């Protein structure tokens, strides 16, 4: 998250709501280690990444739902053969666990 601080604060100063998605766990082969993070603001702008680009689109959708209050902060799993969470997957065959929550702390 270190590399996101400047963008986060720019958004905060502009009064934007922000959600943070963080990789908390990986099983098997995952492109980014726990701690990799991306931030999404209420306009759908994104900084950072949590995978090699495989799941970021779905994470933005999830983050926006959480910002709108349609969903609670939660753990989300993405995997190669995981069709329940989203119809996206990692091409590397691993599973990543993300925690997505609003930056209200």
């Amino acid at each position, binding site marked *: *998250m*270190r590399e996101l*601080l400047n963008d*986060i*604060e720019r958004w905060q100063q502009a009064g934007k709501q922000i959600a943070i998605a*963080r990789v*908390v*766990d*990986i099983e*098997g*082969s*995952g*492109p980014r*280690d*726990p*701690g990799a993070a991306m931030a999404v603001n209420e306009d759908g702008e994104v900084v950072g990444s949590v995978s090699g680009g495989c799941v970021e689109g779905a994470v933005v959708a999830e983050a926006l739902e959480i910002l709108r209050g349609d969903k*609670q*902060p*939660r*753990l989300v799993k993405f995997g190669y053969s995981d069709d329940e969470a989203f119809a996206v997957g990692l091409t*590397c065959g*691993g599973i990543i*666990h993300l*925690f997505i*929550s609003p*930056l*209200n*702390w």
Partner: protein
Amino acid sequence: MSLKPMSLYPIFAERVRSNIPVALVTVIDGPNIGAMMLVSPSTEALGTLGDNELSRIVARDALGEVEAARTGVRHYGPQGQTTPEDLVDTPTVRVFIEAFSPPPIMWIFGAVDFTAALAKVAKVLGYYVVVCDAREVFATRRRFPMADEVLVSWPSPLFSDRGHALTSRDAVCILTHDPKFDVPAVQGALATNVGYIGVMGSRKTHAKRLERLAEVGITSADQLARLMSPIGLDIGARTPEETAISIVGEIIARRTGRGAPSLRDSDGPIHK
């Protein structure tokens, strides 16, 4: 007790920017999902996970994690129980402990063209880069704007002042080619716990350097085995930039214990 008694983010950001070790603790599953704490050494933990005992125990564990620069998920009972028997039939609280430790350090000795390229690549990898050379005309900020510090100094004073701070995550790269400078730099580096010591020079230079090191009493095979010399992976690097890649590639491979073949020519998982 309120779960959000204060704003943690500004304090978190301030500590990260000041390179103060800090753990960001988040409940990711269980009661009080999203509750957070900030934990740094020698200061009171901030925030709460909802239960006093849980907060106390997680803060204690987080301190260990931040000192080891480790990030991961840990499981607890609702009041911080950690033994497997206590966790049977109780709902578990899953806590993500993210450690923000100061960046790894790279000291580069010798203010040469290879230094500029290596400093640039090391910055990409997140190192705090210090360039050191005894020659005032070469060791200038102008020549190494990408470095965090440019020091005009002989190696020995730098090692005696700051060598104790080097750990297994850090690197010392000696690019001077000048025995006057190389020998005390190698001597200084060997007296620290630094994880990587690379020394530039041809095989011939290396052989001569070994003689000079022997003259100052460095002969132990264990000590000499710590030296990566000639420095870098065998990827046919020619330019300063290519050489820089071969050096940081070697640093990564030494840290992960890999032999650095091409992935195509090896088996097994890419990430271990």
